């Protein structure tokens, strides 16, 4: 056996949770047994994206993709593939309809439609290896910024790229950077919002687990551009693996003087710390998040003042989310022209969507903005299990709404989705079949936001509770028809009067399902009927 193999083992939280490490341990044991440890390199990477098939491994140089691995499969991979050069057929990916066996990861339709900018290194490099990150052009963006560009140049480049915030609101990123740069004050902060709490969204976790250096480098560039010497990454405590890898990456960056004083010998000082949450969804809201970093209760404050003027510790603060930062280095390296050539007229670049719910291929998908929902569901997602009929997709989690089947050809970009009364949000995409009751779905989301409401402002605290009571009565067939109008009225008022984004968007799932599935609500009220057969069965 002359050649040396690299085994890329997905060590994202999804693959680990389906037994990835038990497989790894067995693999190491088998390699030892055959004295192959020296010839085979196991690289634990971040999320490969196709979580449904996990645990997965890609064997290089052949590029063979093995899926749904159990510990006992390690023996075959070692004895057949590594020793005898015979691909283990039974562990390969099969196309659903044609039953065609696909050997290479690149030939799987799930990957073919994707364009990876944010997730470019996820599943390819060892996330804790600075060398591998540098091998993939890591830190060339910071080098370019510090040697060739003024802070104004950096901001212009980001502005020209058309990048907009990926956390939900879609605010132009370059403009935000400029506001912070122009804000008066010697002390400024750069913050990364990694408090990804939207049910159904998990791209930020994957970036931190799979490519933490890209966020660290981007935040350093941001520090240079806006004039901040201190950065914070606020990560939710539910993501221990992301915290561990980010911690290790920060430590290595300090060791190589990529963080700290006089970075690259170019006079830039930038320190970076992690702050860990403690289970409060509202901390994803930027003002609440900053209070939590300060060690306070994570409740939001009214805006203005905006963080750019008065943020963390009362100082001008730049706050972007993980996915937004993950775009920055590529924009610097490849230029704003390249970036703005991707996507639609007003929504530039790519968006990472988290495909979940009733869909064959669940996982993370990065596509150019403007990719249609149909492409997502049928080409990338591989359709619904058991050929069930697509009913709707919930987009943007508890702050978003649904896109019903009749609008399946909608391009997924900020504007088109907004026209349907919903938002891209953080990019959660939950696919639902005819077996889902829309009243029940709306209730779940409202239960969620009602539970997570911090209680500071009455519209959100009391309003969502009242809405939930009405919804509950509807789902039990005890509501009157007038109550549906009251529900809409309440929802609209809560949107207008709540203090922060949580309350302002909490009624969206309800309003959106009423908009497209009013007949289902009326059936529950008038006929005590749930066409999905869910509501009246429940003993809740």
């Amino acid at each position, binding site marked *: 056996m002359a050649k040396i193999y690299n085994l890329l083992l997905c060590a994202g939280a999804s693959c680990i949770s389906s037994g990835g490490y038990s497989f790894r341990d067995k693999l190491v044991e088998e390699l030892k047994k055959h004295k192959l440890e020296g010839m085979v390199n196991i690289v634990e990477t971040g999320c490969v994206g196709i979580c449904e098939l996990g645990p997965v491994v890609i064997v290089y140089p052949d590029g063979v993709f093995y899926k749904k691995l159990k510990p006992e499969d390690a023996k075959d991979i070692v004895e057949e593939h590594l020793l005898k050069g015979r691909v283990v057929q039974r562990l390969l990916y099969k196309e659903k309809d044609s039953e065609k066996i696909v050997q290479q990861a690149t030939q799987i339709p799930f990957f073919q439609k994707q364009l990876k900018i944010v997730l470019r290194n996820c599943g390819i490099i060892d996330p804790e290896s600075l060398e591998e990150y540098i091998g993939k052009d890591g830190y060339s963006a910071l080098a370019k910024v510090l040697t060739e560009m003024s802070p104004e140049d950096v901001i212009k480049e980001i502005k020209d790229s058309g990048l907009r915030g990926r956390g939900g609101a879609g605010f132009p990123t370059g403009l935000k950077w400029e506001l912070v740069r122009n804000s008066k004050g010697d002390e400024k902060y750069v913050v990364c919002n990694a408090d990804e709490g939207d*049910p159904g969204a*998990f791209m930020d976790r994957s970036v931190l687990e799979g490519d933490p250096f890209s966020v660290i480098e981007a935040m350093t560039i941001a520090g240079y551009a806006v004039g901040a010497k201190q950065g914070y990454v606020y990560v939710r405590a539910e993501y221990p693996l992301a915290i561990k890898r980010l911690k290790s990456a920060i430590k290595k960056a300090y060791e190589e003087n990529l963080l700290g004083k006089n970075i690259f010998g170019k006079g830039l000082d930038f320190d970076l710390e992690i*702050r860990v949450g403690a289970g409060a969804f509202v901390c994803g809201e930027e003002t609440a998040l900053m209070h939590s970093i300060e060690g306070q209760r994570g409740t939001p404050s009214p805006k203005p003042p905006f963080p750019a003027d008065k943020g963390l510790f009362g100082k001008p603060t730049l706050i972007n989310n993980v996915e937004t930062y993950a775009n920055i280095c590529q924009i610097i390296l490849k230029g704003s022209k390249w970036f703005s050539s991707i996507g639609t007229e007003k929504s530039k670049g790519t968006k990472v969507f988290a495909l979940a719910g009733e869909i064959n291929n669940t996982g993370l998908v990065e596509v150019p903005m403007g990719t249609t929902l149909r492409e997502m569901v049928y080409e990338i997602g591989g359709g619904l299990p058991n050929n069930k009929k697509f009913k709707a997709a919930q987009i943007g989690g508890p702050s978003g709404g649904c896109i019903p089947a009749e609008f399946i050809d909608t391009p997924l970009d900020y504007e088109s989705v907004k026209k349907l009364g919903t938002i891209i949000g953080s990019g959660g995409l939950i696919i639902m079949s005819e077996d889902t009751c829309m009243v029940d779905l709306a209730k779940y989301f409202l239960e*969620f936001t009602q539970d997570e409401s911090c209680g500071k402002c009455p519209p959100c605290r009391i309003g969502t509770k009242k809405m939930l009571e009405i919804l509950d009565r509807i789902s039990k067939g005890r509501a009157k028809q007038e109550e549906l109008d009251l529900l809409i009225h309440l929802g609209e008022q809560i949107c207008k009067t709540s203090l922060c984004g949580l309350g302002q968007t909490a009624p969206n799932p309800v309003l959106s399902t009423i908009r497209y599935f009013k007949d289902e609500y009326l059936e529950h009220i008038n006929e005590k009927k749930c066409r999905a057969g869910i509501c009246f069965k429940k003993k809740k």
Partner: protein
Amino acid sequence: MDREKILKKYEPTRENLLYILHDIQNSKDEKYLSEDDLVAVSKYLKVSRSEVMGVATFYTMFSVKKRGHHIVRVCVSPPCQLMGSDTVFNYLKKTLGVKEGETTDDNMFTLETSSCLGVCAVAPAMMVDDDMYGNLTPEKIDEIITKYREKKNG
């Protein structure tokens, strides 16, 4: 590590409050923050007791009541609900013989819920302490629970 050592690890500034509370809670078998803990933290940071209590009770991952050695958090987010987390949750309640928020008689497990664990692609999911488990079925749950019980006995 005892409480004094944990406190000394951090500068006495307010922004370290969450870290300190996490560390103290994790250092204890009963995974909670006692009255004494809160008083000690308040003295160390020179922050009033009510403020410390306010923070400790705001965040769902802190508890001021005694809990079990292991915290089981079942994800009850809509993606998990769609994939059958109700069944998983009910099965856990039955197996452990507790309701939500309660601790088993042997003080091994406390059963809690989480609004989203962020592993929606392998729903339904749960977390035991820092370890994530996905694609749950009753059989898998039995395996996991047995593993933790055996670890304690063996």
